[in-house]
């Protein structure tokens, strides 16, 4: 079941942004080598690479061998993991299984995405591959549009106005200011939010995470190995994947992220904790509506009430449940296959007390939730500071 003995002993990340001068492999290697250095340069046995779109946007498959080769790790076990936007945390899940099972001693996990080399329409089409290719994407529904269908229905059923989603975006941007790796380290106002142009009604530019490049990595080892290496560790208390129908139209209940419900329940069970024990929550705010649905599915708000968490200022760094503490997907950026790893790197920094201006006080238990597609794959991870 759980892997109580797995710890994160090193983290690394690149700045998220438009890296015109850097390739997919440059980014992955950069983040990976930073993480290995941070871990005290242990010998790596296995590498898992989380990525969604290298085949379509870079013309590159076979990322396990590629990254191992260019990171100077030739010869090790190395494979790519793909679960759409959930690829990063899914790769971590496999890393945890490798360490937890004793199959590997020290494992590296890197998430990487290079999105800015191709024209917008191609990127849009590639992102839509996270949905049902034949019955959503080929019908002309972009990934943004699918989230817009969720948001429209949510507003309709719960009587929520678009403006009421603003606090999620404002909070993310406010937190990005203190994150040196964030793509948009500037604040925005409620006015900015209401005036933002539509990408797919009612999803506006300020509801949407950006197209960008980036890579983030962690090094995993057993708690015993971490102790032997003398590294400051963050323990992985839970790592759980839940799935749901690939297509929105097959959901019995459109507004319940069943995959998140399952994934979070499994994670709570693995860790033996409940939502009230969580000190901060890195949600998958690819679109504002996903933050809301994720909070509800994970037990932080009742159905139809997560918007209130924002309106009541409960999601800020000092709030009841701080979310997107380093800017989230909205303002740190959303290099798709790397996002889950960014969340884990940021949660690790919070739990190591290294989050600087964004430090959540007395953070002991942090949760991340990485979502693939419109909720078809959900990976929930619970991390704990090791005293």
């Amino acid at each position: 079941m759980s892997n109580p003995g797995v710890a994160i002993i090193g983290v690394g990340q690149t700045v998220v942004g438009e890296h015109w001068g850097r390739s997919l492999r440059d980014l992955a290697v950069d983040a990976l080598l930073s993480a290995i250095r941070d871990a005290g340069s242990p010998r790596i046995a296995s590498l898992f690479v989380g990525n969604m779109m290298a085949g379509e946007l870079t013309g590159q498959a076979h990322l396990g061998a590629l990254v191992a080769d260019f990171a100077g790790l030739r010869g090790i076990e190395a494979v790519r993991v793909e679960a759409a936007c959930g690829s990063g945390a899914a790769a971590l899940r496999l890393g945890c299984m490798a360490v937890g099972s004793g199959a590997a001693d020290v494992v590296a996990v890197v998430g990487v995405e290079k999105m800015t080399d191709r024209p917008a329409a191609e990127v849009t089409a590639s992102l839509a591959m996270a949905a049902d290719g034949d019955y959503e994407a080929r019908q002309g529904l972009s990934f943004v549009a699918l989230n817009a269908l969720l948001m429209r229905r949510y507003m309709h059923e719960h009587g929520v106005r678009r403006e009421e989603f603003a606090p999620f975006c404002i909070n993310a941007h406010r937190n990005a200011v203190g994150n040196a790796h964030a793509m948009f380290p500037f604040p925005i106002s409620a006015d900015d939010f209401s005036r933002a142009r539509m990408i797919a009604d009612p999803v506006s530019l300020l509801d949407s995470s950006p197209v960008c490049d980036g890579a983030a990595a962690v090094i995993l080892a057993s708690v015993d190995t971490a102790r032997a290496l003398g590294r400051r560790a963050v323990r992985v208390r839970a790592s759980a994947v839940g799935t749901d129908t690939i297509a929105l139209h097959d959901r019995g209940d459109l507004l319940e992220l069943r995959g998140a419900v399952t994934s979070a329940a499994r994670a709570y069970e693995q860790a033996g904790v409940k939502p009230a024990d969580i000190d901060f929550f890195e949600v998958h705010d690819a679109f504002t509506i996903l933050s809301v649905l994720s909070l509800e599915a994970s037990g932080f708000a009742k159905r139809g009430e997560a918007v209130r968490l924002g309106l009541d200022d409960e999601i800020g760094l000092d709030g009841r449940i701080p979310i997107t503490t380093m800017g989230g997907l909205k303002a740190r950026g959303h290099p798709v296959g790397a996002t889950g790893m960014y969340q884990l790197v940021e949660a690790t920094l919070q739990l190591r007390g290294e989050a600087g201006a964004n430090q959540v006080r007395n953070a002991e238990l942090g949760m991340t939730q990485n979502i693939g597609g419109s909720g078809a794959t959900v990976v929930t991870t619970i991390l704990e500071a090791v005293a």
Partner: protein
Amino acid sequence: MNAPHTWRQQAQRYLLEGVQCTACDHRMFPPRAVCTECGAASMRPHRFCGGGEVYSYSFVYHPPAGHEEFAPYPVALVRLDEGPLVAAQLTDVATDDVAIGLRVEMVTRRVREDSADGVIVYGYKFRPAIPPARR
């Protein structure tokens, strides 16, 4: 070259052909091998009538490749009269008329075009239902 891909799904795209579970009569679109209600793996084809109503909708201003020539266009989840939701474009409708609950009917239209010299992909879209004529 998407000809085989397009060809294979004609029954779905032209006729809204899904399946009905032989064990519990649950109707599904698109077809699948295992019933989402009862788990049985025995299906017979079922053609949906094409009537339904808008369950949720949006407008695509930034279309994916293959759909650029139609932008901007409305998309929707349509609740078919027989139960299932279908994701599709709306057509022949003014922006202001799109609303949750709008009665729609299936029509066959050009859905995408991969290139000017490639096969044309025809498929279902939905438009506001034209009410029956009165004498």
